[in-house]
């Protein structure tokens, strides 16, 4: 157990171990943002068990590991090395990041409609500085916690998506983050910015893929700004390596009548945490968050929701499901705050967990804090096993025990997978889940 000072030292050492501002001229606003972030690293509380948000999720293991920020590619990757990870880019606008850096030559389908900016944030510093000056760190992510501050201090590259008013993107955008093995353990920190102007609409798919034994920390910050009436469908599938740490912090800001529909699937990583922070700026916005996680031996998977209804008439729906099949741990901490003036808020939060083994652990903590009196809010959480009556029913029809369990698990997860409106991703998710469940059920008694 290290001291708090040592723990903070881990963050500050990383934040000053590389100076991205030295790699090219930088605008003042970005320098200032970095300064603010480095200041925050000196002041923000160190995540530990005493902080409510980190009560069930230890970062001890992470802090014992040394990382090198991957600000430049240590090497070039050949087409042959990367291609097998990617698969066909059918009917999507695709962008590929390797260890946090955008690889422009792997982008496909980028003859974009007018009004759409999609590409590397780094590149946009040269081509579109005004856009970045307006929006980057608009949500004040660096003040939220040390990891977001660390990401902000070292902002280097990431996804930039900007869609002009009333433009509807015809195809999904697929962003693939490949985290590949290098001689050092890397700190990969994509910094993403997504801005949809009024009435714009898009579908964004993010895939996180890790090479089998690669040791790295993927510490991503995504800011999402939905202006009036904008619509974003945002699907995320996390398949990081079993030796990796993965933290995705999503900061969502929604204007009136905007609609965000998010589905996050968390399969990989030894330590994986996804945080959603949602803020309604104006009335009649809708936010739907769905999530599915599987937890096997030695894995920790954590979902953190921080939804704040501070204006009237907004709707939020949160549905998260977990399947635990090995000695591991899941954490679900869903907090919805309805402020006094947020009348007619409609918020519903659910978390259901299916435990296939006894020695898995789940800490589920749904929290509704309501200060308004005319609202519709509910929350519910369950932790259960497969129902022996259901297994018997299937077996009595000739289906063997393994298959019966598998069908029931897939049935349990189906509700979440079905929220993905991109058929190819739904298939990929189903394939990954089926393989995971297959291994899981075969090792059960």
């Amino acid at each position, binding site marked *: 157990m290290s001291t708090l000072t040592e723990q903070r030292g881990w963050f500050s050492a990383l934040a000053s171990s590389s100076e991205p501002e030295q790699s090219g001229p930088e605008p003042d606003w970005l320098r200032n943002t970095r300064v603010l972030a480095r200041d925050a690293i000196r002041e923000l509380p160190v995540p530990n068990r005493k902080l409510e948000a980190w009560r069930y999720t230890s970062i001890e293991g992470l802090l014992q590991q040394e990382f090198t920020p991957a600000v430049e590619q240590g090497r070039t990757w050949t087409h042959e090395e990367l291609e097998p990870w990617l698969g066909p880019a059918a009917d999507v606008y695709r962008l590929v990041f390797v260890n946090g850096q955008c690889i422009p030559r792997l982008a496909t389908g980028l003859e974009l409609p007018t009004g759409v900016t999609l590409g590397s944030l780094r590149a946009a510093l040269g081509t579109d500085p005004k856009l970045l000056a307006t929006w980057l760190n608009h949500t004040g992510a660096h003040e939220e916690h040390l990891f977001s501050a660390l990401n902000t201090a070292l902002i280097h590259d990431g996804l930039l998506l900007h869609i002009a008013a009333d433009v509807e993107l015809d195809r999904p955008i697929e962003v693939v983050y490949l985290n590949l093995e290098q001689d050092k353990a890397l700190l990969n920190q994509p910094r993403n910015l997504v801005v949809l102007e009024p009435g714009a609409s898009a579908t964004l798919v993010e895939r996180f893929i890790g090479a089998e034994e690669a040791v790295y920390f993927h510490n991503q910050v995504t800011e999402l700004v939905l202006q009036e009436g904008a619509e974003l469908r945002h699907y995320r599938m996390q398949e990081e390596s079993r030796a990796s740490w993965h933290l995705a912090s999503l900061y969502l800001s929604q204007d009136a009548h905007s609609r965000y529909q998010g589905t996050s699937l968390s399969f990989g990583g030894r330590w994986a945490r996804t945080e959603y922070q949602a803020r309604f700026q104006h009335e009649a916005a809708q936010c739907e968050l769905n999530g599915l996680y599987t937890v096997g031996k030695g894995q920790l998977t954590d979902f953190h929701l921080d939804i704040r209804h501070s204006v009237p008439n907004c709707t939020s729906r949160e549905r998260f499901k977990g399947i635990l099949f090995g000695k591991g741990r899941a954490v679900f901490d869903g907090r919805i705050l309805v402020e006094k003036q947020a009348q007619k808020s409609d918020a519903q939060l659910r978390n259901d967990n299916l435990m296939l083994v006894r020695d898995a652990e789940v800490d589920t903590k749904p929290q509704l804090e309501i200060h308004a009196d005319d609202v519709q809010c509910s929350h519910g959480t369950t932790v259960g096993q497969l129902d022996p009556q259901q297994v018997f029913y299937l*077996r009595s*029809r000739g289906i063997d*025990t393994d298959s019966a369990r598998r069908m029931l698990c*897939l049935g*349990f997860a189906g509700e979440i997978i079905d929220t993905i409106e991109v058929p190819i991703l739904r298939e990929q998710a189903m394939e990954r889940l089926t393989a995971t469940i297959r291994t899981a059920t075969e090792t059960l008694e």
Partner: protein
Amino acid sequence: MLSIKDLYAGIDGKTILQGLNLEVAPGEVHAIMGPNGSGKSTLSHVLAGRDGYEVTGGQVRFDGEDLLALATEERAHRGIFLGMQYPVELPGVNNMTFMREAMNANRRARGEPELDAVAFMKRVKEEARHLKLDEQLLKRNVNSGFSGGEKKRNEILQMAMLEPRLAILDETDSGLDIDALRVISDGVNALRTPDRSIILITHYQRLLEYIQPDHVHVLVGGRILRSGDKDLALELEEKGYGWIEEEAAA
């Protein structure tokens, strides 16, 4: 085909079947009647191999094979089908997918080729039509939100698809109105063949007006106290079960 000799079985330390004997020949329909709690569902569960039941005596042979030594799914592969008194709901499991999986699991186990998707669809829709089961229910999750009658029809649909050698129908008639009872009975009658046997578990004589049994047995206190033909059912309807228990005690 099915031979049950002196069967003792129970659950949670409680012996429920107390020396039960039953012989079923190919093509026969046997009705088992009895008051609530007499062990009818227990018998059906023990035959299907549900977990939790302990057999403490006797034996069950199916085509000469020791049925009790087989796993639940193996019994299904041999042709045993249980229409359940309380069919469970399977959230997230599509009814059609489930039925195809079940059929193919049985076919694989018997070394038969799997049914192709088109042939399967055609058949399942045809059978659903015979049973007046709304086609929409095939697309829903198994039994999820089905009415009592729809669940029972879905059981008979599975029987029709799986073509068992021995079907045990546990109170398939309970909770059905007269029209549904007729449809289900017609469905079961259509499935009667010279080598398919049926055990009809029921509470009421009513069902036996629609499905004519070859034999009627009265199960009381875990034993078959009396066997006869369908006139026995009428007698029970008239006099209740009390007189049989009294006679047996005498």
